[in-house]
């Protein structure tokens, strides 16, 4: 009965406002499948944080192109809150949050929803395996990633696309978050075994005019009973697919990859029932593709960190400009 005291909403509800998202995705399709989008990465932009990084991709050529912007900041190692029990290792927690205005059309609330909790969990997984937690007993390392703008939605249901294919939006966000956070950790000077770079790869199915794969109905029976002819359609491996892309992704994989050690800290793949093969080698191809993407990203991270350091070192004239042959990334191959 107590509920009668509170003021209920109008009995006949109101419909939320529809925003038009005027994205032209042409720029994306022009990219060749194996080239990554240009990445802009800059470290230590958040003074209060121990280490921080800002990542944006692709560097907007025209204001209309959808971009992914996110910042990562690392705090710690700092003493654990007194309530928590003694732990011989550092506790690394990662939290990924979409800012309310990040997704076009729909405003996101401030409370973390399922997606965010899930991504946060995966992010901390990917990072914790790279950090040398043994070096920082009974201390906490907190990583905060906030997504400022995410290329035309997470591909979460609602923005039309992706009926026939899997969603790569979230994977893209996660991969970017991993790279950015890893750069921030390196910037903080926290000891880690290796830097983690996130990479995404997808099996792309060009959509030719006549067949609509986008709709559920079609996507439905594409599983078992797909006409022979359909298989003729080209399925190509595309690195770093953009969710804004005007094509159907049949399967995708995101990895957290430590290039120097050639080890994976995170694997996340999604598949679809078409083409009907057993997905194993498909998945393997995708993982390899994602790793290739990650290697590309890794080079960017290296450069970003080095750039930062040269800046720092020049200030105190510890070394002169030419001193660095930039062979940091020769280590990668």
């Amino acid at each position, binding site marked *: *009965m107590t509920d*009668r*005291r509170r003021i209920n909403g109008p009995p006949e509800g109101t419909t939320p406002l529809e925003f038009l998202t005027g994205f032209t995705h042409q720029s994306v399709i022009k990219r060749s499948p194996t080239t990554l989008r240009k990445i802009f990465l800059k470290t230590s932009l958040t003074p209060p944080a121990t280490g921080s990084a800002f990542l944006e991709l692709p560097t907007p050529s025209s204001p209309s192109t959808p971009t992914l912007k996110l910042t990562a900041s690392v705090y710690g190692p700092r003493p654990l809150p007194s309530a928590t029990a003694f732990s011989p290792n550092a506790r690394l927690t990662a939290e990924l949050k979409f800012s309310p205005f990040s997704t076009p059309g729909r405003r996101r609330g401030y409370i973390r929803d399922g997606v965010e909790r899930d991504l946060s969990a995966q992010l901390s997984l990917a990072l914790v395996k790279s950090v040398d937690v043994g070096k920082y007993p009974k201390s906490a390392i907190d990583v905060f990633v906030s997504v400022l703008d995410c290329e035309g939605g997470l591909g979460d249901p609602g923005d039309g696309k992706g009926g026939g294919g899997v969603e790569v939006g979230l994977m893209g966000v996660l991969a970017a978050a991993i790279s950015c956070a890893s750069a921030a950790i390196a910037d903080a000077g926290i000891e880690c075994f290796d830097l983690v770079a996130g990479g995404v790869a997808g099996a792309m199915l060009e959509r030719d005019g006549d067949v609509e794969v986008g709709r559920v109905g079609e996507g439905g029976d594409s599983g078992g009973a797909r006409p022979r002819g359909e298989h003729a359609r080209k399925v190509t491996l595309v690195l770093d697919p953009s969710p804004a892309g005007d094509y159907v992704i049949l399967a995708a994989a995101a990895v957290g990859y430590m290039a120097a050690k050639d080890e994976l800290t995170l694997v996340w793949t999604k598949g679809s029932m078409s083409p009907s093969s057993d997905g194993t080698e498909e998945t393997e191809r995708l993982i390899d593709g994602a790793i290739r993407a990650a290697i590309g990203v890794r080079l960017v991270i290296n450069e970003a960190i080095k750039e930062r350091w040269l800046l720092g070192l020049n200030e105190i004239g510890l070394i002169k400009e030419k001193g660095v042959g930039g062979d940091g990334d020769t280590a990668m191959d």
Partner: protein
Amino acid sequence: MPRELDPTANEKSFILDALNQKLRIDGRDLDSFRELELNFGDDYGLADVRLGKTRVLARVSAEVVKPFADRPFEGIFTITTELGPMASPAFEPGRQTEQEVLLSRLIEKAIRRSNALDTESLCIVAGQKCWQIRADVHFLSHDGALVDASCIAVVAALQHFRRPDVSIEGEKVTIHTMTERVPVPLSILHVPICVTFSFYLDGEVCLIDATLQEEQLRQGDMTITLNKFGELCQISKAGGLAINALNLLRCAKVALVKVGEITATVQRRLEEDAAVRVRRDNLLESKADNERA
């Protein structure tokens, strides 16, 4: 959270021994209520019940609201209870304790769910407008038998309440002020009264209207709600000491008698109060009569 202090060992043994000899420390015999004192406020729908040291205030108010979409032909009747620190230091404001929930559920079942108030009669325009009758129960001091007292308070207040008269021509609904037209009483279908029994000494002894101390010492309790026509509205014996079925039936019989007495008292007090009012606003009364004629 503060707790009611338990009686000391001495008090305990004393009271129980006394009960064993069928004696109560306040001298009542086992199946008698404390002196029931019922007063009404100046304006309609305010009932003040005193049962020994227990004092409960019930306020009935009415407003015009939109009926629930799924029941367009019925008005809304809500009862709200809140155990505040005023009644006893053991109660905190705000957060609902289990005791409070149980209490409100009981009153709920006893009065609202037994349809003491005819909600159809509260409908003004089907699906558009209806009266919402709301009974707020305030506990002023707590010395046991809260349920019984508050139940009496609510039914008394409901009977005492008068809502403004309404007239409808076409779409237009006019609500007349108290002075304009004689306010109309609510249509009460029956008058449920709660009687709470407390059991001691493995069911040998059972009390009516236990004081706080007695409540703290009881092994089990049962609340029976009846009206004077002998209709059971609600029984709730939520666990506690297991009682022989025959005893329970005996209790029910006793309860019926008590309910008779109490309803009578309530009725008497209502009439007395009505008489007073008539004397007071005789003028207005007669004027209204002429208008109606």
